[in-house]
């Protein structure tokens, strides 16, 4: 029982969008439908305002609201990898999952009429490769591995660099952690 997870170290992220493009290229996605998006926000209150840009993708929540709301079971949690996956043959394109994802991680695929998102490149990982976004990242801001194993590189880095998930208070238990 693995739990695939990722660390994104924003102190190393150059905001170059290479991850976004690598994802689009690998999966042949139209522009704008990548599994990874760079999103910018202003945080804090004047005068301590800060602009933060972070790559956002499916957080592969362990308690995923998208799976909870999906009426067809098209989106499901795969217990073997701890990832959240899509069965496109079942998806009816009702987009309930899109409204329910607190991370804006899902895109509507107009052509197929289904909803797509980051799948953590599980087919690459099975072949011993890294996810495309991790491999392409120029600043090595991304680490991928098994969160279920406390001695894995990613688990140790999360602990050492005090990485945190987004909106932990929602109880979704995301598997993507950020260093701010």
């Amino acid at each position, binding site marked *: 029982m693995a739990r695939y997870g990722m660390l994104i170290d924003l102190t190393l992220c150059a905001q170059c969008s290479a991850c976004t493009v690598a994802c689009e290229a690998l999966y042949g996605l139209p522009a704008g439908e990548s599994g990874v998006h760079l*999103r910018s*926000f202003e*945080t804090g209150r004047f005068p301590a305002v800060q602009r*933060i840009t*972070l790559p*956002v993708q499916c957080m592969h929540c362990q308690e995923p*609201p998208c799976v*909870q*709301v*999906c*009426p*067809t*079971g*098209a989106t499901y949690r795969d217990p073997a990898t701890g990832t959240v996956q899509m069965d*496109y*043959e*079942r*998806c*009816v*394109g*009702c*987009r*309930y999952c*899109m*409204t*329910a*994802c*607190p*991370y*804006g991680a899902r895109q*509507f*695929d*107009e052509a*197929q*009429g*289904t*909803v797509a998102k980051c799948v953590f490149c599980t087919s690459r990982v099975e072949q011993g490769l890294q996810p495309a976004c991790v491999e392409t990242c120029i600043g090595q801001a991304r680490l991928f591995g098994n969160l279920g194993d406390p001695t894995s590189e990613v688990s140790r880095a999360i602990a050492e660099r005090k990485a945190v998930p*987004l*909106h932990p208070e*929602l109880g979704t238990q995301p598997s993507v952690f950020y260093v701010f």
Partner: protein
Amino acid sequence: MPDAQGLAQSTWGWPVIVYLFLAGVGAGACLFAWWAERRQGPESLVTAGRRLAAPLVAAGTLLLVFDLGAGRMHPLRILGLYSHPASVMTLGTWILSIFLVLSVVDGYGPLAGLRPPRWWAGLTALFALGVALYTGVLLGVVQAIPFWNNALLPVLFVLSAASAGMSAASLTALLVERGRVELEGFRDLHRALLVAEAAVLALYLYFAAHGPEAARLSYRLVVAGPLAPAFWLGLVGAGLALPALFELLAAPRLWARVLTRPAWLGLEAGLVLVGGLCLRLLVVGAGVPMRLL
């Protein structure tokens, strides 16, 4: 009214808004018919409510099906909607389906010589309540959109469904009977629903205004943003204030005779329906997702 681009929440647009409205009115009409029958209300009013339920809910459901992506291209997949009971949408699909069967027999069975047993109408009304409730719960469970994630939303939708359904039945009966329907006996119910809806709406918006950042943004969109005309003119003006004014004026003798004329009663019912549509537009359209940070 703002167009689809003017909505803050863009995943679900007009088809869902109109669906929520039609399902609410249809369910409300059924509930009203059940109540009116128990109160020995005019036959035409009871019949109107019963016959409106199925076509309105069916039309809304059809709209929802057309709004699907892959489900429209591969209709067999729609059966999958029944398969995941943990999802409120699966629950709703079951409730809608059962309600449609019940309400077709309830409203149109007699035309085909079918006399359903007495309890049938009660069961249909129970499922009508289910339809009205679930439309609110569907949005209410979405934690990612704080404006929706409010326990008052289902209550608000049920009250609005009841009053819109009552208005749709009254309007239909007025048209069918060319104005010769006795609606006076239902004024109290109508007034109670208006007051309750206004109170719950105020509380709902109060929570939004004092809620998390995204909910406060939704609140501002509703009262002062691009959706404000639908709120002030549509929901507050047409849907609540004008009907309330009619009801106030109808109390003194002088006005009562004017305001009980069919044209005025019909106008009032129409205004309530406009308010019901605007409520769904506002709730769906102003559903700002929570921020990432």
